[in-house]
């Protein structure tokens, strides 16, 4: 399994066929290049332009006398201006940071746990368990969000179950209180002054709101299956012999898990974390669908805010600026993570990593956390 069988293109037909192959090569790739160029590359250029203008969304942003270049004004509006827009942006970053901080570790840990359990040699009904855990990953975010709204309604299923255990559940989707706030006493007044991005220090440490917790659970529920599959692929590479050898050496299952399995899964772990980071920074569908709920302001993400600025507030310039800032955040996150988990990156590993990313991304893209993993559509 180790050696990637990269079959070289037939080198035999250099001479005459070469010209033909050039034409064919371009023709074969032309549709893809056109589509990706027009709908992926061109938009970036156009949006970059719009982010420097005061275009109001009417008519075309190009060759339009009413459109003026305003330099960095749109970027200033979300970073340095003392405005409501900046505060909305700051809050969306806050919300998203907590979303990432909770979803990524939880989904990774759960997926790894499930993969290890399901991978046991003696386990019967493997197929059933895999199906059960993976199925949520193929359904649509709309359907799942609808079901979760039902489950977490104020007198819904979850609260009834909690009531059976004599716990009074919160009114999930209507509860904007941050879970870290709940644990803390009222802060000194200085904490309430507008701080970074117009959001007070007290608001920054709020933690995810109770409503946000539902979205976090939803994300974990719908992605753990996909990542379980990626981990399973990695586990199968390790093979049972190695683990059995470890057991022979007297290492307990837990120790062998941490000293053998986890290190060997490091490449997969890397993929899962990358995809997780990229995906969670792009949360949109669920935020869009819950925009009418009372705690909606604790659920916003930069992706959603960009949408809102473009379509509700008629500020395409600010929307484009938010999109670029988000882009930078995602790139920075991936680089930091790559640096932390740095491996001596052999070219061969690079290739395999790329493949895992593409695979995982393609899988994630079909599921309820669509958007995860790259500009795939």
């Amino acid at each position, binding site marked *: 399994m180790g050696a990637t069988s990269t079959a070289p293109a037939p080198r035999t037909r250099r001479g005459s066929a070469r010209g033909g192959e050039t034409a064919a090569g371009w023709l074969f790739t032309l*549709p*893809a290049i056109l589509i990706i160029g027009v709908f992926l590359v061109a938009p970036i250029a156009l949006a970059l332009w719009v982010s420097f203008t005061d275009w109001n969304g009417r008519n075309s942003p190009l060759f339009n006398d009413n459109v003026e270049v305003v330099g960095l004004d749109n970027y200033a509006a979300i970073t340095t201006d003392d405005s409501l827009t900046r505060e909305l942006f700051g809050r969306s970053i806050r919300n998203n940071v907590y979303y990432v901080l909770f979803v990524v570790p939880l989904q990774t840990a759960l997926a790894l746990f499930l993969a290890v359990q399901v991978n046991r040699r003696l386990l019967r009904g493997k197929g059933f368990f895999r199906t059960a855990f993976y199925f949520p990953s193929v359904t649509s975010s709309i359907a799942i969000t609808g079901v979760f709204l039902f489950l977490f309604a104020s007198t819904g299923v979850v609260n009834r179950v909690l009531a059976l255990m004599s716990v009074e559940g919160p009114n999930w989707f209507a509860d904007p209180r941050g879970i870290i706030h709940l644990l803390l006493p009222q802060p000194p007044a200085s904490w309430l002054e507008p701080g970074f991005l117009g959001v007070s220090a007290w608001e920054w440490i709020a933690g995810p709101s109770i409503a946000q917790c539902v979205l976090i659970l939803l994300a974990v529920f719908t992605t753990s299956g996909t990542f379980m599959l990626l981990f399973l692929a990695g586990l199968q590479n390790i093979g049972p012999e190695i683990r059995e050898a470890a057991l022979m050496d007297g290492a307990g299952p837990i120790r062998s898990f941490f000293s053998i399995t986890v290190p060997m899964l490091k490449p997969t772990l890397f993929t899962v974390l990358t995809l997780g980071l990229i995906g969670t920074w792009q949360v949109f569908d669920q935020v869009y669908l819950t925009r009418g709920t009372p705690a909606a302001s604790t659920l916003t993400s930069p992706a959603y805010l960009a*949408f809102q600025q473009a379509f509700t507030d008629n500020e395409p310039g600010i929307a484009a600026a938010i999109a670029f800032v988000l882009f930078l955040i995602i790139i920075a996150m991936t680089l930091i993570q790559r640096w932390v988990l740095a491996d001596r990156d052999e070219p061969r590993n690079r290739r395999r990593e790329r493949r895992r990313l593409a695979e995982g991304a393609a899988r994630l893209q079909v599921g309820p956390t*669509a958007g995860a993993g790259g500009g795939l559509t």
Partner: protein
Amino acid sequence: MKERVTGGLITGYVVLVVLALLYIYPFVIAVSGSFKTDQEANADPMALIPETFTFAAYERLFTGTDLPLWATNSFVVTIVVTVFRVFFDSLAGYALSRLRFRGRNTVFALFIAVLAVPSVVLMIPRFLVIKELGLYDTYGGMIIPLLADAAGIFIMKQFFDSIPASIEEAARIDGAGVFRTFWSVTLPMAAPALITLTILSFQGSWNEFAHFVISRQSPDLHTLTTGVGTLVSGQLGSGTQFPLKLAAAVLMTIPVAIMFFVFQKRIMSTTEGGEKG
């Protein structure tokens, strides 16, 4: 030692069964909730078997909403996107794997770079381009941008790389052209990857939401995701209507569920195209 392993296995079973129930329960409760009356869904959401079994929610979906139209649009978009995406991705994947042409590396690098661009970031920019091209609020705007994707091209390229070049030799010697060699010799060998890609494309475009939010607005162009989305996020003052929302969720899940159960083995095979392919 053996003891411990068995003990672990039993604990493992218990944990797995509990978890599996947790994963399945939301779907079961959604199905049963969709057959309840509004009142019962609120008063007794837990019951797995409705006290008064009713199709009211489904009836309302078919008479009171445009669900059939949404479903038609979803099928049209999904099928067109899937067919062309699989075709274009294989064409490009094949060229990148097999054909030697000047600029190949550049093209490949472009696709890899595109893989790294987060799609949600592109939502607003893509809307701008779709609008500029006059494709806004048309099937064209909904479909064309989805017709090729870098990840799919990559998967196909990887698979073609694993097929020995020698099988093409015979065909070439017979004088078959590049396209014929691709179409009738190499492509059939790539059936496993094609099936994988078909499934992924089908599910991906069936479940696509954000793109259809920004590429259309006319209610005639609602797909199931955007149409049901309006139900889920609730029309003004129409109340909670859980059975209706659940019924919609159930209906829109059926096609992907069928796809999933039919191709379960392939979808969940973790080695094929993954580590080995």
